[in-house]
């Protein structure tokens, strides 16, 4: 579905991505893990057209080169950006409405309304707070709203950037659990996480990034057991690690 080949991106003189190649197949949940500054967010932003890049990115066989972010949303790629990026002074309902911005001109209102109902069912807390300003929600509710807003565009591919950041473990669990539900609904997901263990639990496959490159890839289950990954990203006890040798 999403194919990235030999992708390079630069911030001025700094190379953020140097030759990334990866792919996401239809119906998969793929995790992208790695430390801060490894280039995970840049990769998502390159796919969304927010960052200029060189190389090859195709979505459903169509090249995304030179496309504006809003046009890429129209193709069915939505990103839930790091830090939620809600329209904080606007109400929950308005945030959801704007999520479907591109659909109003092409589709009948009924379809959009059905999606809104489905999402309010998926995140019941949002229903209670529809008239509340987005900025006044709790962190977990804001993350739910950010995901719901992205889903209002009815994406085929959902890119999630650090959905667990700054949230309590229980909230993280419930948000990651919804990802499973979304997959059942036919949404393909590319999940960027620093919380590697949580990400690997919900993902089918994963890529490990380091300094702008893909260092490792494989099925999530294999990576969870991989020593290198365990040591570098899962924060296993040092003792356990040395004794295991």
């Amino acid at each position, binding site marked *: 579905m999403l194919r990235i080949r030999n992708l390079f991106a630069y911030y001025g003189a700094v190379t953020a991505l140097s030759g990334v190649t990866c792919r996401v197949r239809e119906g998969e949940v793929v995790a992208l893990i790695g430390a801060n500054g490894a280039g995970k967010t840049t990769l998502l932003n390159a796919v*969304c057209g927010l960052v200029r890049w060189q190389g090859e990115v195709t979505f459903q066989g169509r090249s995304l080169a030179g496309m504006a972010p809003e046009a890429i949303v129209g193709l069915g790629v939505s990103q839930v950006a790091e830090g939620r990026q809600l*329209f904080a002074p606007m109400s929950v309902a308005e945030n959801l409405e704007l999520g479907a911005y591109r659909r109003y001109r092409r589709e009948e209102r009924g379809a959009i309304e059905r999606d809104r109902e489905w999402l309010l069912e998926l995140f019941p807390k949002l229903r209670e707070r529809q008239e509340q300003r987005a900025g006044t929600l709790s962190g977990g509710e804001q993350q739910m709203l950010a995901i719901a807003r*992205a889903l209002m565009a009815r994406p085929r591919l959902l890119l999630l950037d650090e959905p667990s950041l700054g949230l309590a473990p229980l909230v993280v669990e419930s948000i990651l659990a919804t990802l499973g539900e979304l997959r059942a609904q036919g949404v393909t997901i590319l999940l960027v996480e620093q919380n590697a263990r949580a990400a690997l639990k919900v993902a089918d496959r994963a890529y490990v990034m380091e300094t702008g490159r893909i260092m490792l890839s494989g099925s999530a289950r294999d990576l969870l057991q991989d020593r290198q990954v365990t040591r570098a990203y899962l924060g296993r006890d040092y003792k356990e690690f040395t004794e295991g040798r």
Partner: protein
Amino acid sequence: MVGDNRRRPPLSCRRRPYLRPGPEGHAITVDNFGPLLQYLVSGLTNGAIYALIALGFGIIYNATTIINFAQGEMVMLGALCAISLYQLYPSLPLAFVGGVALVTVAGLLLERLALRPARDVSPITLIIITVGGAVFIKGLAMSFWGKEAYTLPPFSGSTPLHLGPATMMPQNLWVLGVGALVVALLEAFFRLTLAGKAMRACAYNQRAARLVGIPASRMVQFSFGLSAALGAAGGILIAPLTLGVYDMGTMLGLKGFCAAILGGLGSSLGGVLGGLLLGVAESLASGLISSGYRDAVAFFILLVVLFWRPQGLVGGRG
């Protein structure tokens, strides 16, 4: 600008000669309430125009974080276009709508031809481009309309109305009424329509707006058209009270900018409040102290606000 002022009397003397306080205006006593009311009426009228201009500054600032110093020229273009249209076909509603439409196109062209080619440069560069645009538009207007002043007939006659001890022209009511209507429509647009909400979303978080599929560049263009339309409406409303001259826009634009800063840049409530306050302050100062201080008041207020409350009264995004 300096040269202009030497050649002709300052704007303040040309504007609304019939509303300028007579000698009796200086002899106010506590029980002589009439002149004060008179100043209030004329101040609110000018203030309504400043408010429309200030709203235009705010809309563009919200969309782009730049100050469009060509905003005042849109006011001038509105007045002169409407006057010319009226001379072609004497219908005031048609002149109003036609003038606003023509200037909206001018605003869109300004964005398309002067600002868009320079995309991705710093805001300060863009602001200087708008200053250049203002000078260019003013020059163009001078070569097209010449240096003389034109009149537009009042919308509904010129029999003065008596409001207690104060006198006002029907046009003053038109300015206030249409001004209020325009502000209400604008607010409804931003609160109730999808396009308006999308513009607000762009102002709050442009990156997020692009990620939900809102075309930010189209919103920027739209904001230029909208604020040009607001300025034009202001210019046409005020044209029967002042006169339409090619260089009327500069001072009005600066006053509108002061009003925007006073109220809080980017806030619509602030723009309206700032405009009305500034208009009244000016009119009181020129009535109670000396009409020579009229323009000084605006800039004095601007400095005071920038020193002590740079976010403005309502706390916009400045």
